[in-house]
């Protein structure tokens, strides 16, 4: 009953991992829940499975209690029919006594009846009657039946009570375990170096954090709550079956592997079909998404008929696969039922024969029939666990992989603290590389005085953010030192260091919350006045006021309620509020309308004033006025100097400048 809403296939093709995960949860598909996994396998099933079990370790005391409770509940549940059989026998005996009363009057004793029957040649019947607790002349012994009924009622109530307690505790175990797993993973995310995030598709990480954990949770809920009782039920039922009638029990035992084998066989086959169905659903959804997203292009380029033809093909293929998957998984139930019915018939016939011959009581036969019927479900469940577990363990493995990633180096025990920051930054012999064999920055020396502006320029993809990464210690340098006011950045705790910086990135990241929350992000515990002052300085105040709910307007994740330029202004306001001595700025190139553009420029200029700043520059004015320009290409710093110097060098910068700002090239040398 997983109530998954509307949020599925949008990103299916773009993030294959999340698509697979969506498929893993069987979202939107219907198969017998829990019977069919996805056939996805873990690389190291044993190890990961053990580790997943290890997650339950803090709960082991409760688990023991749960098992005990389950044992009591199952014993009661399984034992009750056997007790009830006594009542059945008493009723049967009463019924036969009544019959015999008609046949012989109420004066005969049991022995006389048996003798008479033997004399009539009804040997079998005589045997049966002999085995009964006959009460000639009377009927059913209601006192006895009543006592049994009260006992059985009590047993059943007890069983329900214990089952309930067990479920209650188990809920806690599962939820707490998953809670801890989520917490660990989140804490891990905070400790992972940025390199981890930059080197992987966001969709993949996200899928591990969300879908995989969901999958683990659902499997735990399903498996843990069922498996213990199922397992105990199988044992208990088998035990009682043997107690009642070894012969019938053996017959049922033959049926057991047959039905378990059949269930697994069918599940395996349908698993393949489901995998195929998911694959084709992915293909079809991918096509639908592509065609709907490119709707206008499809039309203007006159490709509608082709789009429909492709769709029809894929649709037919999907039909094929899903029909098969549905059918094969759909016959698990009837087949299991058939096996169970075979068992039922066998018990009815053989049991009937044995009752007739007096070697078994009727109550035991009816109890046995109940056991046979109780038997099917736990077997199906236990058989299906293997499939379900496989997908959960694969999920767990992915989560564990993430938990095992190397973390950032720990902060120094005694962190250097800068009280009054002037903002002088020195790079001394700094070298750095992302990939061990390709040095990017070698022996960089740079002395930035308080209040100076460093412009970083270069073509797209030149690695302009590398320097920012090093300054903020998103990445660690391989050699040399970076110092702020003479203090080595590595001697500071990362958070201390980062507090010195303000950052405005091109990718204006807002989180879901109000405009106020988003500005206040710049400084913990900011007052309303401070927020408004920052908003005014960044020209946010005006547009925030024009929104229906002002500063309390909620930002949506992909906020469409404010423009790209306005987002940019918000992040500038954030930086204003943080009021750092050192700034890192990424000038936007994205298309922002002219008026907002003017506002952004003004706000940025104001923000830069009096602060040491590193600007990833796209504007002529910024570049020309910078104190130092670092020219980057293919990840490395290729030139360094002032605008004038670099132009006169006629090197890479000269070319770059002329190509990017063709209309504005003015020879300065």
């Amino acid at each position, binding site marked *: 009953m997983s*109530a998954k809403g509307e949020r*599925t296939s949008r990103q299916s*093709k773009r993030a294959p991992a999340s698509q697979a995960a969506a498929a893993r949860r069987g979202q*939107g598909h*219907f198969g017998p829940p829990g019977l069919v996994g996805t056939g996805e396998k873990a690389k190291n099933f044993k190890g990961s499975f053990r580790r997943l079990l290890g997650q339950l370790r803090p709960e082991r005391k409760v688990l023991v209690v749960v098992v005990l409770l389950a044992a009591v509940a199952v014993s009661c549940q399984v034992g009750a029919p056997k007790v009830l059989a006594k009542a059945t026998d*008493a*009723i049967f005996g009463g019924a036969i006594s009544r*019959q015999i009363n008609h046949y012989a009057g109420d004066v005969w004793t049991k022995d006389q009846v048996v003798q008479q029957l033997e004399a009539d040649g009804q040997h079998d*019947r005589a045997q049966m009657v002999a085995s009964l607790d006959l009460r000639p002349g009377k009927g059913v012994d*209601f006192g006895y*039946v009543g006592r049994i*009924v009260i006992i059985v009622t009590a047993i059943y109530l007890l069983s*329900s*009570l214990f*089952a309930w307690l*067990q*479920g*209650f505790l188990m*809920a806690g175990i599962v939820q707490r375990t998953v*809670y801890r797993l989520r*917490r660990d993973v*989140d*804490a891990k995310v905070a400790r992972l170096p940025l390199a981890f*995030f930059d080197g992987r598709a*966001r969709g993949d990480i*996200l899928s591990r954090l969300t879908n995989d954990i969901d999958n683990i949770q659902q499997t735990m809920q399903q498996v843990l709550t069922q498996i213990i009782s199922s397992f105990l039920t199988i044992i208990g039922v088998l035990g009682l079956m043997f107690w009642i009638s070894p012969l019938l029990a053996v017959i049922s035992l033959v049926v057991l592997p047959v039905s378990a084998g059949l269930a697994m066989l069918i599940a395996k086959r349908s698993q393949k079909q489901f995998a195929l169905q998911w694959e084709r*659903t992915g293909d079809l959804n991918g096509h639908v998404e*592509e*065609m*709907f*997203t*490119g*709707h*206008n*292009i*499809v*039309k203007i380029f006159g490709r509608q008929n082709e789009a429909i033809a492709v*769709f029809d093909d894929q*649709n037919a293929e999907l*039909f094929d696969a899903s029909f098969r998957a*549905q*059918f094969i998984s759909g*016959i698990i139930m*009837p087949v299991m039922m058939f096996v169970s*019915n075979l068992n039922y*018939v066998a018990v*009815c016939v053989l049991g*009937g024969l044995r009752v*007739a011959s007096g070697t078994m009581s009727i109550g035991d036969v*009816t109890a046995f029939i109940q056991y046979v019927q109780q038997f099917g479900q736990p077997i199906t469940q236990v058989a299906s666990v293997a499939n379900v577990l496989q997908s959960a363990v694969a999920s767990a493995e992915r989560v564990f992989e993430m938990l095992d990633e190397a973390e950032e180096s720990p902060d120094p025990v005694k962190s250097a603290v800068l009280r009054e920051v002037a903002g002088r930054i020195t790079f001394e012999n700094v070298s750095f590389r992302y990939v061990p064999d390709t040095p990017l920055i070698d022996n960089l020396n740079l002395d930035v005085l308080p209040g100076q502006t460093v412009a970083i320029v270069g073509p*797209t993809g030149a690695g302009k953010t590398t320097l920012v990464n090093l300054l*903020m210690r998103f990445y660690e340098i391989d050699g040399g030192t970076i110092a702020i006011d003479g203090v080595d950045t590595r001697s500071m705790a990362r958070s201390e260091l*980062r507090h010195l910086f303000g950052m405005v990135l091109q990718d204006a*990241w807002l989180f879901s919350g109000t405009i106020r929350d988003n500005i206040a*992000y710049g400084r913990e515990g900011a007052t309303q006045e401070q927020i408004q002052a920052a908003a005014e300085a960044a020209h946010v105040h005006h547009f925030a006021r024009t929104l229906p709910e002002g500063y309390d307007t909620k930002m949506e994740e992909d906020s469409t309620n404010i423009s790209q330029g306005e987002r940019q202004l918000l992040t500038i306001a954030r930086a204003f509020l943080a009021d750092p001595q050192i700034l*890192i700025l990424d000038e936007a190139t994205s298309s922002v*309308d*002219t008026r907002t*553009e003017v506002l952004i420029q003004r706000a940025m200029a104001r923000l830069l004033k009096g602060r040491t700043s590193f600007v990833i520059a796209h504007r002529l004015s910024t570049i020309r006025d910078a104190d130092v320009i670092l020219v980057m290409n293919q990840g490395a710093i290729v030139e360094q100097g002032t605008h004038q110097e670099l132009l006169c060098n006629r090197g890479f910068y000269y070319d770059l400048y002329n190509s*990017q700002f063709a209309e504005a090239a003015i020879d300065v040398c």
Partner: protein
Amino acid sequence: MKTLLSKYLLPFWRSIAVIVVLLLVQAVANLYLPTLNAKIINNGIIPGDTGYIGTTGGYMLLVAVLQTACAIMSTYIAARTAMSFGRNVRGSLFRKVESFSQAEVNKFGTPSLITRGTNDVQQVQMMLVLGLSLLIFAPMMAIGGIIMALRQDRPLSISLAVILPIMVAFLVVVIRMAIPLFKNMQKKVDRINQVMRETLTGVRVIRAFARDKYEERRFEEANQDLTKIGLNVMRLFAVMFPTLFGILNLAVVGIMFFGAYRIDSENMEFGSLTAFISYVMQILFSVLMATMLSAFIPRAAASATRIQEVLDVVPGIADPDEPAPTPDLTDALRGLVEFKDVEFRYPGAEDAVLSRISFKALPGQTTAIVGSTGSGKSTLISLIPRLYDVTSGSIEIDGRDIRMMNRAELWQHIGFVPQKAFLFSGTVASNLRYGKEDATEEELWHALDIAQGIEFVQAMPDGLDEPIAQGGTSVSGGQRQRLAIARALVKNADVYIFDDSLSALDFKTDSLLRAALKREVRDSTIIVVAQRVSSIMHADQIIVLDEGTIVGLGTHQDLLQTCETYQEIVYSQLSAEEAA
């Protein structure tokens, strides 16, 4: 839901009838087994007739085989029917959306249309699988069970009148409690995923502002919320199942006790008691099943409604009944676009997005459109390929009202480069050939040459056969844009429309591309929307839009003198000497 089902299930009425019959046979078989068992007891065991026990056992076996055969057959037909239904609905939906104009697409939004076409159809299909099996079967079993129970012993059947309401009431209460819990749980799941997503996308900002602790708190809160509600859901089930089984078990015990009186007074045979208990179990399980399953119906119905909404749309833009004849023009003259007092407003909107728009764009010339965000530039050009229809006035191409042309023909005239370059999965070549399937490689290279794409395509390992991922995510933004431009050029159209397509390119590439266009595309009409003044200042005519009306029309030099809005735009981007 009704309309959707009745329309798309009607063709399958025969299959459905067969399914119903098969399910009926199954139900009867299912119900017959306990009766046979009772017969074994009454006529076999009690009189000690072992032969009877054997033959009846044989019958039971036959019944079981028949039942299984029917079950497999009905599963087969039901799976086939439900999946065919899904296939057909998906097909209709896709065709419908393909016939939509931009206005209709906007009404739903692309993501919503995708969901409706995929998820919602699956929801309904899944419901149908249930519907064609358990939802028909369960009531049959319940009713059949009641009939059989009555046949076994009427007075004892009164017990059903007590047990059934208790169980249904209990189920209804549980479901009533469960549905809001599930909804709430979904919200919490969404919330925690949202926080996670934000933590990941904002990882730099979070660290830059050293707000890890704050994020941790946010996550902790979401995590605890989710855990709490998850606990409630699981606990509800922890109560539900033992209680249900408790009810069932106590029902059996109770029936046994009262049955004993019926037997003792010889109003009922002993075998009938076991049969009766079997029936009660079957009835209760069927009711349980039906109630649980019907909890799924509202969700499927909501999906069906959402599908129906799409199917019900009558596309507002259609081909004319009698298209105007194609004028006989030489190539050089084709492509004259004329706006005649055009007004456009979105359906239901109070204010027009565009009004009093009149201009001519001539073949061989470049017409540029500038204006701030929201001034209506993109809307204006989307009127030309009839993505929207004008609400008054008209647009003519070569003297023909575009509404009097078949759209296929209209689109043939137009080469369109959208703002967001969208490439299809395939190869570079398959994308370039999108508008002209039989284009030769030479034509492709020529188009790439103009679009400044030769260099990077040649540098790709597979050249023209380089695979392209959906949306074109495998190439950079600038490359994507150039491929989209080349794709339009391959079409060899009379009218080219560039919707702010040049801004992703650097200045140098931009100017080279414009120069190449001017050189190579001499006869066509070019209409360019742009943000960057430098890319349009050399256009033959520039249209300045502000709040949906034309506030300036002329060359760069003219407008610099006369148009205030234009000046404002220019000076925000260029210094005075650069602009001159």
